């Protein structure tokens, strides 16, 4: 019997807002889908598009990037830079055919534990419906086979 598809979600989050928010979700005993793997960074300004591409290459079905609300960045302006970067990167991915639903961005503050939990649950459900991110992973499979010519 084949196992039902369980999405792999990778979340790159900033330490001072979203990670704290996720922590709050935990201490408040809010249940959220265990499919998410959280990678903590000091600030969204540190998040390079390389991380997102690597996550997809390694088998993530959806990638979430989340940080402090504009104006609340612990490092003052990191999230402003991140926002510009995401706008551009998202356009690039869309233009080259990587569906927009596979990369998500959010602002989640340290007080928004409920928002975090709800968001993870929503994203996991949507990804379950979308199915595994095969188009990228198919390219990966080709690599692992014997070369044709």
């Amino acid at each position, binding site marked *: 019997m084949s196992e039902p598809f369980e999405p792999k979600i990778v979340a790159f989050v900033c330490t001072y807002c979203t990670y704290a928010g996720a922590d709050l979700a935990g201490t408040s005993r809010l249940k959220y889908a265990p499919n998410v793997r959280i990678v903590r960074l000091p600030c969204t300004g540190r998040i390079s598009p390389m991380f997102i591409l690597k996550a997809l290459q*390694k088998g993530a079905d959806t990638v979430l990037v989340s940080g402090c609300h504009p104006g609340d960045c612990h490092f003052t302006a990191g999230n402003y830079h991140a926002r510009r970067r995401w706008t551009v990167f998202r356009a690039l991915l869309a233009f080259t055919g990587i569906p927009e639903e596979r990369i998500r961005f959010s602002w989640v503050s340290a007080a928004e534990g409920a928002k975090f939990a709800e968001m993870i649950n929503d994203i996991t459900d949507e990804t379950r419906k979308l199915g595994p991110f095969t188009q990228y992973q198919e390219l990966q499979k080709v*690599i*692992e*086979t*014997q*070369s*044709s*010519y």
Partner: protein
Amino acid sequence: MTRILLRNKLDECIAAWQKAGFSVLAPVRRHEMSSFGEVQKVADMALDLVLTERTIKDKFFPQTEPLIKYKISKQQIDSETMTPPDQKRVFFGVRPCDASGLAIDDPLFGWDYKDDYWFRRRDNSVIVTIACAKADDFCMCTSVKLSPESTKGADVMLRPLLEGSGWQIEVCTERGKALLEIVSSLLLEGNGHTFPLPQVAEKFDVEKVMEWLASKENFESQFWKDISLRCVGCGSCTFLCPTCHCFDIQDEGDTYQGIRRKNWDSCSFANFTMHTSGHNPRNTQSTRWRQRIMHKFNYYRGKFGVNSCSGCGRCTRQCPVDMGITETLQAISNLPR
């Protein structure tokens, strides 16, 4: 007795070869690029080109190739050698320069050990060369002592008939003979008049060039700096060259598993000779350009008795800044002695 292959029999030949287990590859135009690809009939082929933009090199020495698959666990490392496919292939419509490229590289891949990846593919392939009916300004086969009808590397040589109805056949090797046996009923006896060969003027005196390169004091000549000023250091010339063969071994994977791959590499790249200490013996484009020319016309010749150049001219044709071997060798052969 010479035989003729008629163009209108080619579809049947392809079918016969396929039935005998061969995959038939020929020049094709696909995705805005001309290269060699699998064909089912003559209508798929692009036989009117001077030559294809890509060589057949990547069908014997792929630009990326998995060698070993490995898995690392606490106790051991499990590895699986990934072998090249055993598919028999016919390469139909290869240009003499591209065929000679394979023959030039054979001694290298069989030098200190026999490179199974190369030879398995070589042994399974039959090269059917078609002599050139036209050349362009970049061709320079005659300058490196080859020609538009050179049989070097060919198993069968076809010469286009004047009327364009087919080709006159010359069998070059046992392998070629065996291939033609399969379709012998489809061939005609006869001579036919062949299309005249294009005139490919000699662009440089290769003997003079080799003499100059062999002289040790020219190694440090200012010539190298002057001639390579505009080279941007991309890998186009090396990757499109029928004879260039440098490669890099890369392990791709993560902590627990991965694949070891053999990838094309280029001596024009700045990091080609970068040591882990950070020292780079060839850290200027002029030293890298010098290495390319010396390798092709001196070092390779010294080791294997043949220049590592088939005169196809792709290096200049595709160079983004119009460089290539021809200009440099012309300049060397014109230097005052």
